[in-house]
């Protein structure tokens, strides 16, 4: 953003010279993130392949137990391709994963791909709804707290907000789940305690998943809002006597969203993982419940496929958050360069 001066001394500032670079910076950034995504997915796949091979001893023997006949163990090993050299196995595994073939369950004999296809949507619905709920509650809450406590006024609100969100963040989602079940399902009998049925069965799991993230995002939203309120453009907007609501919603809010959404995106990924515990409590037929089962029962193909899918989801969500931020905040692409 260099400034041009013509020799006569009259003012000719560079006429928005930064615009074309800004667009190509966005494109470059997108490309870089896409490349990073592909590389990360490849690394993740190798890691999930390695996971089975890092298990000490023989995973098939460990899975079938010491009493299993040798022929069965050998047959299972051959079926899994574990008797071939590992580079060949990795190649086969890569081909299988890319064609959606994740193997079959040791225990039930179902194709793992099919298990994922039926269970993953249930997990995603929970995580997505919980994220939306958290964002919808937390951003206004954080802004409200920031406006009320700006420049150290209302110390009571500040202390209360800090203590409440600090405590809410520190309690893990499975405790919320248990508490909600105990109170609303067992004691008050208002809502079903477990399993996926009607719309009311969604309420408790979503609440349990969103309380912690709500507190976390509210803290970040408050910090970001406070930072923006100290900026000169807010002073100028106040000097221009813009109405308070307009000032906060149109001027401050958009500037806080980048950081808030970054964290919101990271929280979505942690919610995808956190849903494992919540699904377990609510007997929710998602992938998380199945992952726990498969690890407990040493059903390695299912564990491997599920962890691979979870990892890929995390990477893809992070990628999408980056893209979204690039669209919402064009200056962030420039900053990154």
């Amino acid at each position, binding site marked *: 953003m260099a*400034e041009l001066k013509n020799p006569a001394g009259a003012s000719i500032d560079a006429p928005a010279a930064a615009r074309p670079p*800004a667009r190509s910076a966005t494109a470059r950034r997108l490309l870089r993130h896409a490349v990073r995504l592909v590389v990360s997915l490849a690394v993740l796949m190798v890691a999930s392949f390695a996971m089975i091979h890092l298990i000490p001893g023989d995973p098939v023997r460990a899975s079938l137990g010491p009493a299993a006949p040798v022929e069965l163990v050998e047959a299972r090993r051959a079926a899994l391709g574990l008797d071939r050299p590992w580079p060949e196995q990795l190649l086969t595994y890569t081909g299988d994963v890319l064609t959606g073939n994740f193997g079959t369950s040791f225990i039930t004999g179902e194709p793992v791909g099919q298990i994922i296809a039926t269970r993953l949507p249930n997990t995603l619905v929970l995580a997505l709804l919980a994220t939306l709920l958290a964002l919808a509650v937390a951003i206004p809450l954080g802004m409200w707290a920031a406006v009320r406590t700006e420049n*150290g006024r209302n110390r009571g609100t500040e202390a209360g907000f800090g203590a409440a969100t600090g405590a809410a963040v520190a309690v893990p989602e*499975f405790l919320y789940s*248990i508490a909600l079940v105990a109170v609303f399902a*067992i004691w008050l009998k208002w809502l079903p305690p477990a399993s996926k049925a009607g719309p009311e069965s969604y309420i408790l799991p979503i609440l349990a998943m969103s309380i912690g993230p709500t507190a976390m995002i509210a803290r970040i939203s408050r910090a970001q809002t406070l930072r923006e309120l100290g900026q000169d453009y807010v002073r100028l907007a106040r000097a221009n006597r813009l109405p308070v609501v307009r000032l906060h919603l149109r001027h401050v809010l958009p500037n806080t969203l980048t950081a808030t959404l970054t964290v919101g995106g990271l929280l979505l990924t942690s919610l995808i993982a956190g849903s494992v515990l919540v699904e377990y409590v609510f007997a929710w037929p998602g992938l998380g419940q199945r992952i726990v089962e498969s690890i407990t029962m040493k059903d390695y193909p299912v564990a491997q496929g599920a962890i691979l899918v979870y990892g890929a989801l995390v990477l893809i969500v992070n990628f999408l958050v980056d893209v979204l931020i690039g669209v919402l905040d064009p200056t962030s692409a420039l900053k990154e360069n």
Partner: protein
Amino acid sequence: MRAGLAIVAALIVLAIIGPPLWGDQAEAINSAAILQGASAAHPLGTDNLGRDLLARVLVAGRFTLMLALLATAIGAVVGTVLGALPAVLPRKGARFVTGLVNALVAFPGLLLAMFVAVIAGLGAKGAVLGIGAAIAPGFARLTQTLAASVAGADYVSAARMLGVPRGRILARHVLPNIAEPLILNLTQAMGGALLGLAGMSFLGLGVQPPSFDWGRLLFDGFARIYLTPEVALGPAVAVALAGIGFNLLGDGLVKKARRARPSTDKAVAPRPEPVAADPEAVLDVRELTVAFPGGVTPVRELSLTIRPGEIVGLVGESGSGKSLTAAAVGGLVPYPGVVGASLLHRGGEVAMVFQEPALNPALKVGGQLAEVAIVRDGLSRAEARERAIDRLGRVHLPDPARSAKSHPHELSGGMRQRAVIAMGLMGSPKLIVADEPTTALDVTVQGQILKLLREVVDQTGSAVLFISHDIAVVGELCDRVVVMYAGRVVEELPVKELAAGAAHPYTRALIASLPDMETDRSRPLASIPGRQPAPADVGEGCAFAPRCALATERCAAERPPLTVYGPAHRVACWEA
């Protein structure tokens, strides 16, 4: 913070005294009392072997904390090493490690923990290794960030120039300087590890019987939640308390390290008798005082009258109160500051221009200008847009229609400052308060902005209050100069008298410190010895007396009032 400390201390005490006090009770099998709910004998009920659950919860504290400590230690050591590696590795290796850490940080800890648990098998060992692995990336990232900030420090550069080996720089200079934040982070990581382990045990992936931690007790209790919900209560409360305790303590430690608590007093400003305003003035301020809590008064008894078409310069060093005067004029003194005056009359609309070109980075320039007219004058969107483009043209932005569609970051600093002035012109301001509007700009652009302000005054007849630390700029632009020192006006004079007729020693010193064509460049620039007192340290006498060559005993004892010295010239000095 205190609550967090109390909870953590209680946990540590419990871990020490729990097993010896209740260990036998926790293992006592009673086949007559299996799977009971709460009763007087067993407040939290009994398990499937009739063992008392309250005792088991109290005893499990030690094992739970030990596992969490172990996982934290593993995570901290692995993470710190991973984070410090890029500082010592060759370029390629450093990039690889950095990339690995960045990828792992984005991964949810539980997923990493389950990955490790699959490999290491069910049980406490797998869970501890898994949670340790989950904690490590966070530590690595923190170490990296901190190490990078230290690596740029002068003493590290100096050591590098002296040829100190990299490993030694890391051990001697980098790690000691980042130890404190790392240790603070340990507290929070400990809480995270405890919750993570509890989660793993709760899922049945962690501690296996006959061992038991809080997570395992919760696993057992949860299976019976429909019949006797109270059996899940003990371990649930214990886990929640521990999580909250470590989190509050960590938060508190971090905050304490960052800042001291500000004072909680209320500011008091004097409320002098009101006086009548000069009807022609666009600004008439009498005895303006701005006060902050703790008896800090950065602006004292300032009086200032500005008439239409006048450009008045307000000069002073930083801390003299000039910017707060501008804020008071604009009605923008920040909380907890309080404004008092016998008169604060604005003869019409006031527009503000600040040092940093203050446009909202998220909104388009034209929209921000138009908004002012829509909100204040009730213009339609199209009318407001038209006016915005017109005003952008009047401040000589090339291609105003296109500039209106730009985001602020697409304009240069000088263009942004023009746009802010244009925003001020959206209404019909009687007074433009410009607070150091050119300080952030380079010299050529500075001159252009000054020219523009003069042009605006000539065209619109509005007045300007121009605030600057630079007496040369003020002398170039203004009609009248007001000099502030330590919150008070010390001299007010027409600009044509500035060079030869200044009466206050401070004003004269400011002018003398300016280099001009005749200054002997081989000699150091003249400067004023000493320092302006802070607003809280102003005593009874003249605030400038300690730095003044002419000061007498009277100057130190009694403050000189602002008195008439000549036509349109006032000065506050006993020796003038």
